[in-house]
């Protein structure tokens, strides 16, 4: 029998592929992760709804907090109390809500399954998502800082190092929580849950409004929420240049618990 590529007649467009020996090899792991991180970053930045959540709403909240007396009584200017919490809010926007929703829909459309059959694999896929969260968060920090400085923000110069470290830890905790939600419920439910929690935690979770200003019932619990712990740690860093070990511990616990739960229960299809 002839093994002729003319089988089934010639194709309507394009001629036979040039000869090439079969067999692939994977690109190096680091390159695969960086490529995926870059691709997901570009996808997030092209998404208008996500940009509103990531940049526009935090900036509006920052302006709102500087023109109202909500943050009076902390011995620091309104803007100095507001900005650390706004940066924490940015981490929650990108790592939890934005990342959660996009992962949920990627799961629905089989994107996670397809990419996990390529050399990228499941580990590379998650690493790429973490990288994209960090890249978008970096851009958010730049934009918020630039606007905040023009509004008169005066951060403690000693605060930058602990603040950025805590912000990355907070992003890790929220990424793990976002993946846990995205990997266990339908994408429509992920959309609802992550948006609702963003609003609830943003308003009442101690992230931009410190626990002391919240109703007594909430005060005792917000310190144990990832939002309250991240907001408090950011304010401690930028207002007094200090590290809040209690908040760091809370964030570490959330990262470990949510990360473990996501690893255990994440459904890929």
């Amino acid at each position, binding site marked *: 029998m002839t*093994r002729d590529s003319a089988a089934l007649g010639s*194709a309507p467009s394009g001629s036979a592929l040039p000869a*090439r020996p079969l*067999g692939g*090899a994977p690109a190096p792991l680091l390159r695969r992760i960086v490529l995926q991180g870059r691709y997901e970053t570009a996808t997030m930045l092209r998404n208008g709804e996500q940009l509103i959540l990531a940049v526009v709403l935090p900036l509006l909240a920052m302006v709102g907090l500087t023109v109202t007396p909500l943050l009076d009584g902390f011995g620091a200017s309104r803007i100095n109390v507001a900005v650390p919490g706004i940066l924490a809010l940015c981490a929650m926007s990108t790592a939890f809500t934005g990342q959660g929703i996009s992962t949920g829909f990627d799961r629905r*459309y089989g994107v996670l399954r*397809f990419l996990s*059959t*390529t050399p990228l694999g499941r580990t590379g896929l998650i690493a790429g998502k973490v990288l994209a969260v960090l890249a978008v968060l970096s851009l958010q920090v730049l934009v918020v800082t630039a606007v905040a400085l023009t509004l008169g923000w005066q951060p403690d110069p000693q605060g930058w190092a602990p603040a950025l470290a805590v912000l990355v830890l907070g992003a890790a905790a929220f990424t793990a929580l976002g993946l846990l939600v995205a990997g266990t419920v339908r994408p429509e439910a992920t959309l609802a849950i992550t948006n609702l929690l963003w609003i609830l935690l943003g308003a009442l979770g101690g992230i931009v409004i410190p626990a002391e200003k919240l109703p007594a019932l909430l005060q005792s619990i917000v310190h144990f929420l990832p939002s309250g712990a991240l907001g408090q740690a950011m304010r401690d860093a930028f207002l007094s240049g200090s590290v809040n070990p209690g908040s760091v511990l809370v964030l570490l616990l959330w990262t470990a618990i949510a990360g473990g739960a996501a690893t255990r229960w994440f459904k890929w299809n």
Partner: protein
Amino acid sequence: MVRSPESPVLSISGLVKDVGPLPTLDGKMLRVVSGLSLVAERGQVTALLGANGAGKTTTIECAQGLQKRTHGSISLLGEDPDTAGAGLRSRVGVMLQDGGLPPSARPIPLLKHIAGMYQNPWPVGELIDRLGIGAFSRTSVRRLSGGQKQRLALAAALVGNPEVLFLDEPSAGLDPQSRQLVFGLISELRNRGMGIVLTTHLMDDAQRLADYVYIIDAGRNVAEGTVAQLLQHPLPPDAGEQHIRTLLFEADPGLDFTGVLPDGVDVTEARAGSYAATGALTPADLAAITAWWAARGIMPRSLSLEARSLEDVFLDISGREIR
């Protein structure tokens, strides 16, 4: 056709897959695949043919490492897909039933991105030309037609230049032109030595493409063989008069039978020079085709008349009741 003695690209033995527990079964597990075995060779198209829900997709997803098997053994290019790493994944191309492409992506950046995951990817431009992707290169995935999506998904599965290609229902949603294009490329890749494993519920796909067919029913393989072997499967005792017949013959490749046979008789060239004319063939039709050969001096290398199609065999084996 004789199965080659070379080591197979895929070997599945005694595969069992339970899913659940399912609330619809009072919290019991559902056995989707129960003791399935198959072998797929290099340079051949191996088809898993069965109705929807027969366990075809579950079987190949276990082979791809997307689902964990309950029992049995699977060797894909000599490795266990459950524990293999990026090295194995780079030698295997996968086209999922639902495509698995991000809806907001555009075809060319997406293919280039996937190509970046490989050391020596197939040049993206060649795949774009071969699969006619240039015509819709600026359209996002969510706006593509079914046929365009399938062609893009096939390009994405091929961009790593794999040794093994898995295609889950490759003709789903294909318009006739895309079908011709995709089937032509599958044959071309098979002829280059790629091992191709596909699932289909369409007899016609299996008859046109497959070198070897496994008929899957209720999670087991109930029959296997080349299309010609399966067509010789004994008739059930209650079989009545068979009106649909298939004329199989081998001659020069690329013959155009347009107008020789009446409407309703479908001529396909499953492999170069290997033809099957299927339909309600009459003695006059046989006279017409032999007269046409005589007028052109064509002497078929082989010629046989089958009383049944693969579809009849399939229904004889797996039962004719609707499920």
